[in-house]
């Protein structure tokens, strides 16, 4: 089995050290300033300020309805934020500012330019069920990047192999498990060689025993230095892999910090209350920061 991604191959702790050796002096790859969004009367996001550096892994946590998914989807302009600015690699995402300082929708080409650096993985996988795993991965390579089919299939097989699914290339999604489908979805995004991967609750729709294989792939990506923003309920994953954990509640960032700041040292009452639910269910993995000490 060509699965090179088992979590035991390299300890996450070692990788975090490696990452922290060279502090990044380059400007942030994602920059959000004063981002806000409302659905009618309801303020879903307010005054979000967030920077993500190259190779940084940011986990967004918070109760449901806290706006974490909306925030992540805004970073791909799948939700239109209506206040503030989001810059991806210095490019304003989704909007254009005209001469009079008013914002209007950016054209499709501009939006696609900004999105070109992004890969996004959804809770519901969103694979195209009428295409094989291979077809799902090659589609955009052939039709967007205009790569020859044989070339595209070669590249697709490489990424499918990376997520451990080379032997399932010819299967339709209906014949794959949820975990396998999600790994194909990750491969589909990776094939476009994005600089940033956005994950919107990638394991929330999975049976518990399938969560691990998807997290393992994500962990491997983090180790390889991929910039990642992850909305997740997997506190163990956040504790192990994140450089920064951001806690949202009611559309605002309540607090943020390193995993140990957020999971161990926080005094914030709302965050403590939120985390207590997980502690009660013993939902942390074995290597929580508590056990590392």
């Amino acid at each position: 089995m060509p699965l090179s991604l088992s979590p035991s191959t390299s300890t996450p702790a070692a990788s975090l050290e490696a990452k922290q050796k060279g502090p990044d002096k380059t400007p942030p790859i994602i920059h959000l300033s004063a981002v806000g969004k409302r659905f009618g009367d309801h303020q879903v996001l307010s005054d979000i300020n967030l920077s993500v550096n190259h190779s940084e892994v940011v986990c967004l946590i918070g109760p449901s309805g806290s706006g974490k998914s909306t925030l992540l989807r805004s970073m791909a302009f799948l939700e239109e934020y209506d206040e503030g600015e989001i810059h991806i690699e210095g490019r304003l995402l989704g909007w254009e500012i005209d001469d009079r300082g008013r914002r209007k929708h950016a054209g499709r080409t501009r939006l696609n330019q900004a999105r070109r650096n992004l890969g996004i993985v959804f809770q519901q996988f969103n694979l195209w069920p009428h295409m094989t795993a291979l077809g799902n991965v090659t589609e955009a390579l052939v039709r967007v990047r205009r790569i020859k089919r044989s070339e595209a299939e070669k590249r697709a097989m490489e990424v499918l192999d990376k997520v451990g699914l080379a032997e399932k290339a010819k299967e339709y999604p209906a014949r794959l498990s949820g975990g396998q489908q999600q790994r194909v979805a990750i491969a589909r995004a990776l094939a476009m060689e994005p600089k940033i991967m956005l994950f919107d609750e990638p394991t929330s729709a999975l049976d518990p025993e399938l969560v691990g294989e998807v997290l393992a792939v994500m962990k491997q990506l983090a180790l390889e230095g991929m910039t990642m923003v992850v909305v997740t309920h997997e506190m163990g994953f956040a504790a192990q892999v994140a450089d920064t954990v951001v806690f949202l509640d009611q559309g605002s960032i309540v607090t943020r910090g390193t995993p140990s700041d957020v999971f161990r040292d926080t005094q914030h009452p709302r965050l403590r209350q939120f985390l207590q639910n997980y502690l009660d269910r013993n939902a942390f993995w074995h290597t929580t920061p508590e056990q590392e000490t």
Partner: protein
Amino acid sequence: MTFDLSIITANADAIWNAFLVTIYTWLAGSLLGLMAGLLIAALMLFGGRPLQRLLRVFIELVRGTPFLVILFLVYYGGPSFGVRLGAITAGVLCIAFYSSVYFAEIFRSGFAAVPRGQLEAGECLGLGRLQLMWRVQLPQMLVLILPAIVNMLTILCKETAVLSIITVPELTAVLTGIGTRTFTFIETLLVLCIAYLLLIEVTSRVGRWLERRVGTYLQR
């Protein structure tokens, strides 16, 4: 009662030609109707609000008009506007026009059935709207809307009988013509029924075969 099928064999050539005219008007009209229907549905999906409303009104208007009236309007009303069409051409166009709105509604329901997330995923990968429609939505819709389309096709097949009113030499016109001239109503009507039944049976079978074929990817 007399029952004499020799009247059929004596007119076999004329009946065969009429059969071909029926098939031609039916299939050509349906094909145009399908294309127009897809166009209307796509415009309703991607066009702006005003266009959506306009098309909505158009659909309601056409749906609210009997086929016969549409036929009269085009064939007998057309010349007042300088549109003079041959009977067969007028017949084909009327079937296309009439069916386009029904097909549009079928396509619209199909578009709505493909989960939005699949489009979001494609959008983020840089696929354009037309590419998504052609590559993601249509192939999946087909499985869902095929029964409705086959159903509509069988209705249209029988609707071609109405074309006899504007002198299209199709099955109904020719066979009832023979019947009235020779007083052989039972024989001619029997052949008429069998001919339509045959066409519809073939359509249903092709439809079921297609359903199985396009649906293979759904099998676990």
